[in-house]
């Protein structure tokens, strides 16, 4: 009987000692929560997930208290698990905030890229205009709302004729060269007359003269799709038809250089 007691006592002491000396079993959810929650609390973006971080902290504190009081593992794991899940929610919210900020920065950056491109395009356009202007500097060129307008007086044609005079060739050579070098620029050729003669004959004459200039430019290598011809007759005088000088001004061919059509930047969508 005595020996039984001794055995039981020895076993009990051994059990107590082993319980005291054994390393406490590692609780994975609790360890995970202990790692995650403080990290999130330190995050500079903790504010976007304040409620979730607070919930995670409460659950972690509860889990720690339960662990200290050696409560049931299931109870500890329940609180620790909630702490981990709340921390994960907070983490995802922080990632969302980061990505949203990146998108906003990206949108601003996109506007900068577009603005730079527009600036470069404006400069290039200006250079092209300057180039064309320089090339045609000694001709009668005016900047108007319609674009650059070059007026060729009646020196190109004999009176009532649509055949180009030989004197016109030098001017046409230079015009053709300027158009070839600025192949993206379109030119509209308009024929105009004074009011001598009938409307119908003046209309026909203006059309033939415009076409004569168009043909001459095409013969000099200007692309067909770059130039178009139109007769305006006597309807758009630039001076009075009551004087010889005024009528001379009205007998003219104008070349209107339109602005270059740039290909639209595909990504420049709203």
């Amino acid at each position, binding site marked *: 009987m005595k020996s039984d007691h001794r055995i039981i006592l020895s076993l009990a002491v051994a059990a107590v000692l082993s319980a005291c000396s054994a390393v406490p079993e590692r609780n994975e959810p609790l360890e995970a929560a202990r790692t995650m929650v403080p990290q999130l609390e330190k995050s500079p973006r903790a504010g976007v997930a304040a409620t*979730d971080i607070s919930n995670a902290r409460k659950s972690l504190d509860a889990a720690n208290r339960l662990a200290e009081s050696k409560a049931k593992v299931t109870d500890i794991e*329940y609180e620790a*698990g*909630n702490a981990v*899940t*709340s921390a*994960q*929610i907070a983490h*995802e*919210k922080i*990632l*969302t905030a980061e*990505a*949203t900020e*990146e*998108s906003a920065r*990206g*949108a601003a*950056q*996109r506007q900068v*890229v*577009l603005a*730079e*491109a527009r600036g*470069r*395009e404006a*400069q*290039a356009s200006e250079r092209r205009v300057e180039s064309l202007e320089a090339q045609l500097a000694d001709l009668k060129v005016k900047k108007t709302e319609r674009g650059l307008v070059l007026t060729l007086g009646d020196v190109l044609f004999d009176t009532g004729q649509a055949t180009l005079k030989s004197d016109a060739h030098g001017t046409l050579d230079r015009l053709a060269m300027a158009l070839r070098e600025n192949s993206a620029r379109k030119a509209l050729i308009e024929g105009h007359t004074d009011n001598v003669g009938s409307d119908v004959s003046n209309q026909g004459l203006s059309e033939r003269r415009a076409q004569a200039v168009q043909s001459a430019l095409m013969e000099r290598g200007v692309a067909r799709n770059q130039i178009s011809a139109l007769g305006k007759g006597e309807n758009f005088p630039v001076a009075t038809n009551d004087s010889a000088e005024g009528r001379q001004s009205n007998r003219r061919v104008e070349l209107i250089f339109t602005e270059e059509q*740039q*290909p639209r*930047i*595909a*990504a*420049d969508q709203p």
Partner: protein
Amino acid sequence: MNQSTPVRRQQTLPQASANHSSKNVVAVALGIGLFGTLSACSQVSTATKERVTETESWVQQTQQTLGNSEHGAVELQQAKEKLGSAKSAVEKGQEQQALRSATQAHLYADLAVAKSQSANARKTANDVLAGIDVLRQETERTTPTQR
């Protein structure tokens, strides 16, 4: 042997008494057990039931929000499983288990939504950044920087 007999008798009397009191203890324990069983069979509180119902609604809402998105799908499944546990616990009258499972289901549903939103935001950001590169290349092609 003769000396030991009275001793045994002396032991017998308290033993009888102990037997009697242990019967009482058993009876009390049985009573408590029966009470506990009856308590367990009783319904859980209205508040807990409402909590489970509310969680069910939230999980369904989350399901609709996520649709077929793969982001948050795992967490949504966990939410559904916990909701199932909560409902089962309600049927069994397990108050604490029902409440805990409902809480966990709610948290998993929250996590599913957060993961889905995070993935969407990341995709948007990546698209914006990739778009800038494309735009930069395209504008450089159409309007090259003067060097």
